[in-house]
């Protein structure tokens, strides 16, 4: 059987380095298979986070040869194997160990966002009447598997570390899913501008490029939200109107 070399980051928050592992490969293997094989045969304590191994749970995010991907969907047949395959943890979050990083910040961010708040039901049994074409758009956003690759690649978080003032593409998609939900009655536009930091996004579309669910994050979620913010806060007519209201 052919072998390939995998250059895997080993270490914790304190220190670490890349280590090379040779691993036999077979047809159809994905990067996560190789990591598991190395773990079972050569490095029992190699830390990797994973779950479904089918691209549905978004647990095994990492950077493979520098690009943010799900390890379970990265086929070895699409990666050059004549030189070592580099696997390292996502860079935007603090490292726990090896390929595992601490993504708890994301869970804290979600708690701060206003929850879904439906309008009163349309029917006596507590149900609503909504057409498919009215939910198509939010269904795209609800495909998100929370792999946080978009957060990883977003320069506002990755380079500028604005975790305290910018919620990142994942949660802008979440906000869009709520704002454009046909039943939702909450208003999040003020929060988007003031605390969520939507203005920091300068639509470079890096997030859209790495999304394993192919959600058009920038065009379909972020830009329409930015337009709502502009309409509400920067529309000249409304600004005049607000002056008179005071």
């Amino acid at each position, binding site marked *: 059987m052919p072998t390939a070399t995998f250059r895997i980051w080993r270490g914790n928050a304190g220190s670490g380095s890349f280590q090379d592992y040779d691993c036999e490969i077979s047809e159809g293997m994905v990067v996560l298979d190789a990591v598991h094989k190395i773990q079972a045969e050569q490095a*029992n304590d190699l830390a990797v986070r994973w*779950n479904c191994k089918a*691209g549905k749970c978004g647990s095994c995010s990492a950077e493979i040869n520098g690009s943010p991907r799900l390890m379970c969907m990265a086929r070895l047949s699409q990666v050059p194997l004549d030189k070592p395959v580099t696997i390292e943890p996502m860079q935007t979050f603090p490292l726990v160990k090896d390929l595992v990083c601490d*993504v708890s910040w994301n869970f804290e961010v979600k708690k701060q966002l206003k929850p879904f708040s439906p309008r009163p039901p349309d029917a006596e049994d507590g149900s609503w009447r909504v057409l498919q074409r009215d*939910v198509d758009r939010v269904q795209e956003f609800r495909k998100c598997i929370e792999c946080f690759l978009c957060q990883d690649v977003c320069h506002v978080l990755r380079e500028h570390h604005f975790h305290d003032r910018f919620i990142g593409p994942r949660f802008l998609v979440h906000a869009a899913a709520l704002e454009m939900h046909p039943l939702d009655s909450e208003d999040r536009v003020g929060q988007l501008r003031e605390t969520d930091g939507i203005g920091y996004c300068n639509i470079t579309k890096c997030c859209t490029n790495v999304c394993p669910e192919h959600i058009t994050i920038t065009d379909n979620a972020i830009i329409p939200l930015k337009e709502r913010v502009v309409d509400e806060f920067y529309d000249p007519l409304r600004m005049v109107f607000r002056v008179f209201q005071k």
Partner: protein
Amino acid sequence: MIEHEPIQYDVLVIGAGGAGLRAAIEARAMGASVGLVCKSLLGKAHTVMAEGGVAAALSNVDDRDNWEVHFADTMRGGQYLNNCRMAELHAKEAPARVRELEAWGAVFDRSPDGRILQRNFGGHAYPRLAHVGDRTGLEMIRTLQDYAVHQEIDVHMECAVIELLTDGERVVGAFAFDRDRGTFKVFRTKAVVLATGGIGKAYRITSNSWEYTGDGHALAYRAGAALIDMEFVQFHPTGMVWPPSVAGILVTEGVRGEGGVLRNSLGERFMFSDIPPAYRNQTADNEEEGWRYTQGDKDARRPPELLTRDHVARCIVREVKEGRGSPHGGVFLDIAWIKERLPNAAEHIKRKLPSMYHQFKELADIDITEEPMEVGPTTHYVMGGVRVEADSQMTDVPGLFAAGECAAGLHGANRLGGNSLSDLLVFGKRAGEYAARFAQENSAREISRDHTARVARTALEPFDRSVDTDGAENPFEIQQDLQKMMQDQVGIVRNEHDIQAAVEGIGRLRERAERVAVSGNREYNPGWHTALDLQNLLAYSEAIARSALARKESRGAHTRLDYPDKDEKLGKLSVVIRKNSDGDLEVSWEPIPDIPEGLQRIIDARK
């Protein structure tokens, strides 16, 4: 050795898939303080992988549907070994539980008149599965998760419970460790809800994730609760078979619900050649009628591809064994053929089955709108589990509740597709409600420090052994050997000789597990985690094998080559597994609950 004082809650929920989240939400709504423990990050639990839909007699698409039909379908699918009270509650309450999800933000696919759309599925008389394309599980878990995070529920992510703490009378807490830092946590609680899911990781070919190590089954067994029906392991008929590294990944039954057909290497629709008598009246006898059924013709009967999972899996095994399989040891599942019948078929398939399209395209280089898939059975679900009281979901151990896949009763000898998602909503809610009530009526009790110290010591033993000494065992190797053995000897078709060999093999693996050694330290150490998982894997594997040995008949998902027929009198009995006073596993038989006259009438009317 134990770093902190016990963490106190009224109710501790173990597992944060659908059942655990729903239980936690309900217990909190009842006013209880709630801790929720999950082995993964929140929202990653196995529910996320459910594809086809959630079964509920909403009758949005076919107004002939109601709870009685759903109840009768569930009982027939389970070969009448089900707990009929659970089947009744499930059928009655599922619609309200689904509507509640919509009120919490779930966005189901819509019918033309704007209601929740429902689709056909195996064993269900009418289109009954509310769904979101083929990612229904993701929609459900995200809805529950996003609702739960605003309810003041304490979530302990990447934390695993390794022992329930009891005081001889009832459950008093749980002992856990943090997977990332490796530190121990002790919970002191008035009630505990087990919602730990299934057991698939004891098998080599499985649709289940690493988390499915039967923790709830093993924890409850060690705490003194009874397990029932453990011989009934569901092998989903359609898992991927190629390439090898993805073998076992699920191919949703929704493919067949949307008109996909099964063919052997001769191109035959082999499912037409073997239709069980109990289903003959409800099954199409020609391809044309089957197609019309999938397109919503109310006068048509369902195609035989939509027979129950146990039967379809056995037929696939037969085709492969008799030399009519596909090149990689499966059969062909073809949805591309519908282009003969539908305009824009490729777009239709991509819209109805987006993640299947994606999965085959990315993992197998196959475009399912153009060519057939190769599929074969994969370990999917366990019908058996912790025995619970139907209304409250309380186990034999006071204060200990169980819900979802780790609990038993609803599905009998075989589960219908779609009934697991409704199961975890209906009984997750009930378990949360009754656990909170139990907590209101009972005070917290003391935790034995001796007990926690003993558990901690045992948990750390693998570090005491050096990986370099003679006879030191690698935990991953033991798990792989177990998976191979269970797959080959306690798999889809079984016989006395093989099962007996597996029982003995488990004994040998247990001896090897005592010599497991791990390297490194306690910080996020998968070798250590696997060493700890082995205790649970071996405990419930023995329960499965011993139950399979006891049931000398073929029924539902349990197929014995040496006893190919049903045994009338075993159809009224469950195999019960308990730990006896010597700490050994004991097998006994107990009658299933009587079916009251009213429910029997519903069953008879639809036989």
